[in-house]
């Protein structure tokens, strides 16, 4: 698909956010964040629900006025000239926002028309986009007949109708089954190749690790750290993680073992893990001797990073 990149040599960062805050009454959803996304980059906001990711996305899209701070997209100020920003930016909101009264094709076609394409251009573009997302056979179907995965992909397809140079996606795969999720990831990877700048939010560390060139870890409306996925793991979760799959009857013995030696551990269901970050290696030699425990090790990942920074799990929020 021809994406008609809009000026990749632009000196401005594709997205630049400075000291951005949002309060809803007494509640602070976003508490002063700054980051910038280079042209062609895929940047992720990783954090649990309530971290302020969606609010940040909505402020970018002009759906929510910022309480404080600046947002520039392609050098254009979102506050003073939101309309021009929305001409070069595609948005995938959290709820697909598809028009149930229309067909798959009409959803794309009319969106293209509203974005500012002529009827002819919008028709052609809709066919291109349908091709790319392999939704061609469904083009005459009502959107309410589509599966959740297809609806999501249609919403992403729709954001590309205006051939945007920047696409903002709020949790592109939340609620999708693993198969649909993989499919979206594949499609986003191809999109990335074409040079589009993508800002996405997610609470799946796997998604962030696979798709993002750089990411920011968000919690309670703040960015806690920022970098490439590898840098983040190197910085906060460099050692291996020892994982113990424990049978229920042996759980007590394992807990006692950890507590006697003051080893920090975390327990998710039947899985007990100990991180060996920053060179500190806990003595876990005795655990193997406890009956009903299987021990394995894995490298640290973004989830461990989140835990190391916040002291909390990314999942199960």
């Amino acid at each position, binding site marked *: 698909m021809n994406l008609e990149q809009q000026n990749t040599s632009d000196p401005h960062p594709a997205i630049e956010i400075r000291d951005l805050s949002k309060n809803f009454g007494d509640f602070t959803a976003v508490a002063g964040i700054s980051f910038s996304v280079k042209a062609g980059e895929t940047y992720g906001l990783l954090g649990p629900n309530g971290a302020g990711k969606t609010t940040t996305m909505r402020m970018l899209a002009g759906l929510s006025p910022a309480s404080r701070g600046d947002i520039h997209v392609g050098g254009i100020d979102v*506050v003073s000239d939101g309309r021009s920003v929305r001409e070069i930016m595609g948005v995938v*909101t959290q709820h697909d*926002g598809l028009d149930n*009264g229309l067909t798959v094709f009409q959803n794309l076609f009319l*969106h293209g028309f*509203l974005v*500012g394409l002529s009827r002819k251009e919008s028709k052609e573009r809709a066919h291109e986009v349908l091709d790319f997302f392999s939704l061609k056979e469904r083009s005459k179907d009502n959107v309410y007949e589509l599966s959740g995965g297809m609806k999501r992909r249609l919403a992403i397809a729709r954001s590309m109708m205006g051939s945007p140079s920047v696409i903002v996606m709020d949790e592109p795969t939340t609620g999708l089954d693993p198969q649909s999720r993989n499919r979206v990831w594949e499609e986003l990877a191809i999109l990335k190749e074409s040079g589009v700048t993508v800002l996405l939010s997610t609470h799946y560390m796997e998604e962030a690790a696979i798709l993002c060139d750089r990411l920011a870890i968000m919690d309670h409306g703040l960015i806690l750290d920022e970098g490439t996925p590898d840098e983040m793991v190197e910085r906060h979760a460099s050692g291996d993680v020892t994982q113990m799959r424990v049978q229920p009857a042996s759980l007590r013995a394992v807990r006692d073992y950890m507590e006697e030696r003051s080893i920090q551990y975390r327990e998710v269901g039947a899985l007990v893990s100990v991180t060996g970050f920053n060179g500190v290696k806990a003595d876990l030699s005795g655990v193997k001797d406890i009956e009903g425990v299987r021990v394995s090790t894995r490298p640290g990942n973004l989830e461990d990073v989140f835990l190391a920074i916040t002291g909390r799990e990314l999942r199960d929020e």
Partner: protein
Amino acid sequence: MNLAIPTPGVRRRSVTGLWFRHAVSFVRYWKFVLTWVVIEPLIVLVAIAFGVGKLVGEVEAVSYAQYVTPGIIMGNAMFHALFETSWNAYNRIDNDVYETILTTPITVTEITLGDILWAVTRALLTTIATAAFAVAFGWIDPLAAVGILLPAILVGIAFGALGFLFSAVAPHTTFLTLVFTLVASPMFFFAGVFFPISILPNWVEPFAWALPLTSAVHIARGFALAEFNASHVWSLVYLGVATAIMWPAAVYLLKRRLIK
């Protein structure tokens, strides 16, 4: 509440784009919508003119059918405009259709204008359909039928704006029942559609005149009976003033609902 999003000038392309979206959606379900545009008003018109008309005889020196026709047409125009921006607009709020539209270079102000323009279109469609029948039955003069397109447009604008005052604040669809109990029914029965307001008790009369539909019916009847005086100018002004109050209120409330 901070609504400090500057409102840029209105772009015609945005408004016609929205109108086009509604038209496509409308055409998709034309078979069903057509029953409401054409058949429903025909039922009311025939029942009232042939049924009630037989009992009533003449009103203001014309047959009851001739008297009631412009009123019923205005009433139908009102129902269509109101329905579009209350029920249909509520669904567009609820299904995040407006939210999606706002991610394009379109503003809330333009959304209200596009939807009101579509409300006017629906009001005109039902007016043309019903007036055509009325002309065929000899209940309205063909020239007068063309004339009442003017108040039909005004009804589309005023009630298109009014519908938003409900959809923009509605917490759920049941709330929209109020559109009928508080607006549509009182207007339909007290706006001089079926009987002259002058026969109402004196204390009710001012209330009846305060209803925006009354002004529209008054103007439409002016065309039907080919009788105009200063009161028709006042009706025109009154509808204009009502719209000038309701439309900014609609923009404000819809902004509050969608941009937060």
